[in-house]
């Protein structure tokens, strides 16, 4: 479903955040992306929907060359890729419902957006998605009135509104209480298993990786250093991914 070939990103000439990363993801897989901070996890995920323009290489999603897409094509690609962020990235001053509805913007005619209008079906759908993440009664509240865990669930509902084929989750639990991590991860798992949505999720904790991921991609210094099953990460591989001084916790 997703093919990544020789993906390279240079922010400044010579300083590479990603170097020649290639891998394929079949439909419905739950892929964990691991690595130290600054290893290129975020850059990799953002290159897939071109929030960051890759310097070279190719991303192909369902036969569409994302890297060569023009503005209109990119819009159609992006609306099939939901994204969940470490800092939730909700619009604080807007209502929870509006934040969820924003997931439909890729489908909505810009002229309708000018009047701040969404089709009634979308509004109904947004309420349903909020019910699904257990926040049905919060629809009218301002987004910044919610707790961190609730905000992330709104973020997931927004991604679901896109009717996605794939969800990119960039450290979805890193700025939450560790005890809340599983609740958020379970939503992602549910979406992956029940709806057959492919998930690419960058994670810090290896126990979460073991618990949820079908496959692990590990980056170190922008290079792909491991691609395999979670259980295959032994101590030697662990040191290769996280460096010699790293020690396992948990």
């Amino acid at each position: 479903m997703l093919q990544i070939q020789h993906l390279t990103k240079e922010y400044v000439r010579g300083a590479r955040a990603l170097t020649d990363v290639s891998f394929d993801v079949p439909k419905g897989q739950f892929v964990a992306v691991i690595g130290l901070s600054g290893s290129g996890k975020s850059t990799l995920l953002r290159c897939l929907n071109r929030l960051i323009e890759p310097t070279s290489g190719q991303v192909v999603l369902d036969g569409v060359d994302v890297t060569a897409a023009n503005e209109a094509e990119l819009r159609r690609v992006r609306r099939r890729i939901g994204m969940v962020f470490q800092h939730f990235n909700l619009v604080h001053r807007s209502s929870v419902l509006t934040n969820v509805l924003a997931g439909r913007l890729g489908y909505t005619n810009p002229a309708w957006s000018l009047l701040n209008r969404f089709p009634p079906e979308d509004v109904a759908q947004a309420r349903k998605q909020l019910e699904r993440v257990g926040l049905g009664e919060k629809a009218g509240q301002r987004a910044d009135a919610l707790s961190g865990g609730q905000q992330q669930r709104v973020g997931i509902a927004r991604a679901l509104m896109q009717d996605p084929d794939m969800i990119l989750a960039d450290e979805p639990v890193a700025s939450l209480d560790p005890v809340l991590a599983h609740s958020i991860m379970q939503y992602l798992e549910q979406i992956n298993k029940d709806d057959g949505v492919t998930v690419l999720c960058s994670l810090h904790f290896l126990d979460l990786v073991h618990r949820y991921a079908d496959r692990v991609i590990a980056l170190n210094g922008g290079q792909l250093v491991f691609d395999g099953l979670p259980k295959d990460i032994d101590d030697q591989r662990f040191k290769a991914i996280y460096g010699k001084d790293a020690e396992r916790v948990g």
Partner: protein
Amino acid sequence: MKNFGALGKSLTMGVGVLLALVIYAYGFQVTQINLDEVQDEHRQQQLFRILRALFQPDIYEYDKEEFVVNAPMYVPCQSAAPAPPAPDPSGPYMALTPACAEPGAEITVEGFNFEPNLTGPLNFIPPSGVSLQMGNLETDAAGHFVITVKLPKRDSDEAQYIRAVTRRNVGQPHFSNNAIETWKKIIETVFLALLATTFGTLFAIPLSFLAARNLMREVTSPFLSVALGILVFPVGVGLGALAAQSVNSVAQVLAGWGSGLSFAGLAVSGFLMWAISRWALPPVEINPPGLAMRVARQAALVVVALLGLLAFYTLANTAISAGTYLESRLSIFGFLGTFMADLGEMLALFVWPVSVLVSGFGLMNLSGQLGQRAIERLSAPTTKILNVLLGAVAGAALFAAIGATIEWIYQFDTPTLTLGWPAAIGAALGGLLAARLPARASLPVGEVVYNLTRTTTNVLRAIESLVMVIVFAVWVGIGPFAGVLALALHTIASLIKLYSEQIESIMAGPLEAIKATGATRLQTIIYAVIPQIIPPFISYTMYRWDINVRMSTIIGFAGGGGIGFLLQQNVNLLNYRDAATQMLAIAIVVILMDYLSSAMRERAI
């Protein structure tokens, strides 16, 4: 070594202090700081006089009863002169000692039987009839006064007069003319500031997005699109102007058929616009439509735009005629009718530029899409050839337009210099740029627009509205309208800066998230940018209103209407008590505004 370092440091310090001394000495000289003047007794008297006046603003007054008493006098003494008639002791009279004197001599004037406890001037009236004030008299409880004054150097053979004028307050105090005038002008001032802020904000909000780097940086366009855009923009402007003109004449004809029909036309065109746009702008589109469908939709939108023009012109005409009718019927509230007619006229005035701009930028947008499609379909060499050709033509057009502007300003009257050469240079530059760039390269259009907006607003902001109003006073005449225009222009420039800085400092996260959903640039602005900038925009608008109220109090100094004009007049005529009233009014308004704006700002956030 170390010691020398310390010594060096002290030396540098010493030289620095000396230098500072010289700078301040020179500063004292050029600003003419003069402590002798401050201590001069005469100057101090003047200061006290003006301070006393300023603390007695002329707000209320009484109706006055005036008592005039004359006493004839010969200056200088005449030997043949008849003795002055004996004063009538039953009424008020004055005794002069001596009865005649040389010009410039001192005399003593004693008054009897005057109204008690009054003050007033003691004047000398030469044959010409003018009043020369010699002093101020003050009657005691018995109506008696004694004053020694110096005669003016006016000699005459005829009898001249000493005249005492005393005034008594009658009835209740009431607002003086000056207070009423001040009230009228302060109202004018507050509304001047309100209108300037409103107009300024209306223009600054959309323009500020063009001056926000974080939004504009991403706007790029292929070379072909840019070249096409430059070429079609004037065509679009022409078409827009033509459309506005012809639709206006149609609207005039319709207006001639009666107002009932105008209303019907308004309703019908409104409904048609709604129906057609419903069809041409479907809420959701899963698959991109074919070319034929897109062309049909664009055509439908053009029809909607024309209908919109018709509706606006009809609305304007209706408002003008209804307003004029109401103006004559509503007596006291006639200004509401005038306002309605004014709004109609403003609408009619604004439809033309809006039509021109929409059509110009619409066509530019369309040509941009065309360019995009072309480079996707054509091979790289073909694109390059097209780029060079169109780049040359567009460069020529652009430079010729700049040349024409220069010609219009400086009136050189040499077309080869102002049109021929720029066109040639532009063509060469455009072609060269296209040849040097890769065929499918994108140009940073957003950066260019950003820099142009920034530069223009910086230049405008550097010119104070007090200076701008001079130009506007020449254009629309001295008065508050010129003040509104000058303040509005300055408001636009400053608010663009303040607003755009707020846009640049919004949180990038939501922006990224909305972009990731596949939102277009417009949708990203509406759903990620606007919610974040509303509180700072309100706060800055209030702040600007505050500034405009203060500015509008002095913009009258330069012919911009408002209370400043009155204040300046009174200061120039040395009516310090009147000026004090205006200063007091300004202080009250500014303090109230300050309180109001901070209260409203607190609510907005």
